[in-house]
């Protein structure tokens, strides 16, 4: 089986109207700006908890999630915050989560990008033990198959998680049952500090699909439309009963594993190459400018909308109260009703 597909970005974008191309650019720019601002606030000691940058991988995150329908589910990792935003999460509530506030999606019970909005946007609340969500996606996909309603589950993990047994268990099971699921590997070339060659001995992750009897493709994760096209094809296959697919989307993690990690193990030339030549945000902007989809005025307006969205969400987060300490042990069991009721808002803010 051929495990690679050559996609032509120029061919891909003909399928999308200009308005949607501009929407994709907005999401890419929002992803980049959010990442930079959160890092700055983290370094200033103004953002509590941990920070996992997705910079450089926006093409993968936006590309796969933009291909999903609202009714499809997404099982992301801590690195994939902007995939969740693309799926529809509200930035206000996302930042409230970062600051541990009651208006965060998880009401302060988890922080940073360990976020999810199952009831609203069908995204699974991220867990650290990767790829822990892969088996759960099998179950969701099984439910869709049983219902026969054309929904699809999509799960993302990194290159490092492909070394874990659950990755193989899940793909194998989904292939046996021919489930409507799309397996995405965000290959950003480093699992914390471990490079690809210490994670797998085959040339690509995509070719592993052959061993499970499903299609696998390797795409340039810095080309958002290439990713989008591959995801759309895989989703269509799943939706129409064709079973699971594997997408390996290759980019580079520009920042460390987390906010504390300077990532000195990434070769300087590699990083420079990606930052200078394979910037998914800049390259897509240039592409749309070339095609006349955006001009200077549109870009300025877009950037200002991005910054406004962030400032508004940041203010919203800081104004949102902390959870009430007396609620700490509520919501373990369904029957206490904590999650079905509006939570208390008497936890105060830093302003008092």
């Amino acid at each position, binding site marked *: 089986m051929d495990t690679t597909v050559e996609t032509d970005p120029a061919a891909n974008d003909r399928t999308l109207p200009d308005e949607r191309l501009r929407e994709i650019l907005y999401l890419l720019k929002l992803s980049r700006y959010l990442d930079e601002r959160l890092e700055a606030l983290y370094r200033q000691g103004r953002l509590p908890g941990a920070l996992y940058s997705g910079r450089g991988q926006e093409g993968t995150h936006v590309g796969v999630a933009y291909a999903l329908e609202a009714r499809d589910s997404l099982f992301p990792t801590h690195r994939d915050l902007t995939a969740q935003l693309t799926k529809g999460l509200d930035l206000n509530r996302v930042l409230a989560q970062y600051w541990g506030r009651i208006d965060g*999606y*998880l*009401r302060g*019970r*988890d922080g940073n990008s360990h976020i*999810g909005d*199952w*009831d609203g946007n069908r995204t*699974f*609340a991220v*867990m650290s*033990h990767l790829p*822990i*969500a*892969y*088996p*759960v*996606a*099998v*179950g*969701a*996909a*099984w*439910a*869709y198959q*049983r*219902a026969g309603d054309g929904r699809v*589950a999509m799960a993302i993990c990194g290159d490092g998680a492909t070394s874990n*047994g*659950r990755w193989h*268990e*899940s793909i*194998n*099971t989904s292939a*046996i049952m021919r489930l409507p699921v799309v397996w995405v590997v965000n290959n950003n070339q480093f699992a914390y500090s471990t490079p690809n060659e210490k994670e797998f001995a085959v040339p690509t992750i995509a070719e592993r699909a052959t061993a499970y009897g499903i299609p696998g493709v390797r795409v340039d994760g810095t080309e958002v439309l290439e990713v989008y096209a591959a995801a759309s094809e895989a989703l269509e296959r799943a939706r129409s009963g064709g079973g699971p697919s594997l997408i390996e989307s290759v980019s580079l993690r520009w920042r460390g594993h987390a906010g504390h990690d300077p990532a000195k193990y990434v070769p300087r030339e590699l990083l420079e190459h990606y930052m200078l030549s394979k910037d998914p945000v800049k390259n897509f902007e240039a592409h749309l400018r070339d095609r006349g989809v955006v001009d200077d005025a549109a870009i300025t307006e877009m950037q200002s909308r991005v910054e406004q969205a962030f400032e508004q969400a940041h203010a919203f987060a800081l104004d949102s109260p902390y959870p009430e300490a007396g609620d700490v042990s509520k*919501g*373990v*069991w*369904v*029957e206490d009703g*904590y*999650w079905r009721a509006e939570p208390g808002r008497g936890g105060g803010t830093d302003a008092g």
Partner: protein
Amino acid sequence: MATQQVEAAAAGHGAEPRGKRSDDGQATYLVAIAEALWEEMERDERVFMLGEDIGVYGGAFKVTEGFIERFGPTRVVDTPIAEETIVGMAAGAAMEGLRPVAEFQYSDFMSSGFDEITTVLARYHYRAGVPLPVVLRAPSGGGVRASNFHSINPEPWFAYTGGIKIMCPAFPSDAKGLLKSAIRDDNPSVFLEHKALYRRIKEHVSDDPEALVPIGSAAVKRAGDDVTIITYGAMVHKALEAAESLAGRGVSVEVVDLRTVYPIDEDAVLRSIEKTSRALVLYESFRFLGIGSEVASIIAERAFEHLDAPVMRLAPPNHPVPFSPPLEDAFLPQVADIEAAVDRLSAW
């Protein structure tokens, strides 16, 4: 697995388990469990089962024999040997509104699915407010010469996950009623079926599909005045045997069967201690940090003024379950050990 007499012959594929009751209408522990599954599958089409060899083969212990013929392969799902995926699959299906009942061939193999149990099942509702009504069924316990990897009592593992209810019934009626409650409960639960009881214990069980045993409720299985034995699972039967023998010597023993080991019915335990003032905590998981350790703590904290003797524990040592009969017998608490422990308590 030791071969044991099957109490009732199979009534034929696709026929309900009630047909497997004995001629006088009694159900074994195994048949009672199958009845609970069958009735809940009939009552609620969101309920489905998944696991290894549960379909055509009917399960490692034949609990689900005949189910696939009645309910079909979309409700009796044979999976590959992939325990993490079985648990995760159950969680994902539950998130989409289904009510999965996953079978493990032995509770020992739950360690192979443990990350999905402790990280997803136990924590998801507290973190994110999405109910995961999943039941994990597994045969547990020793005494059948099944050796290291088919004999453990893993209930303390799950108690420590902080978000899973755990049932360890000792009688067919309790097994049936508790399993039905677990399937209807919106929280994840681990339902441990003591394999030594499957075909050994039988009794009349209710025909009423709404006869439930509440989760978190203990039961006094024998009333007494002098000493309380707090226990669960197969040890209940050893405690009852010891109590009978002790009664012949004039010692009156009360046997409290916890039935659910997490959460524990603290009030039922305390009521008995207030009456007898002496407590023996008997359990089959490891002595150190076992369920009984917690029961002993509850008594020490909440019933100190009622005690006439120190709380005593009787449980296996902290090491693997051995195979050779004299070794396994020495490992597990025996009736004679229970009697000796009650005698020591009575001497205070």
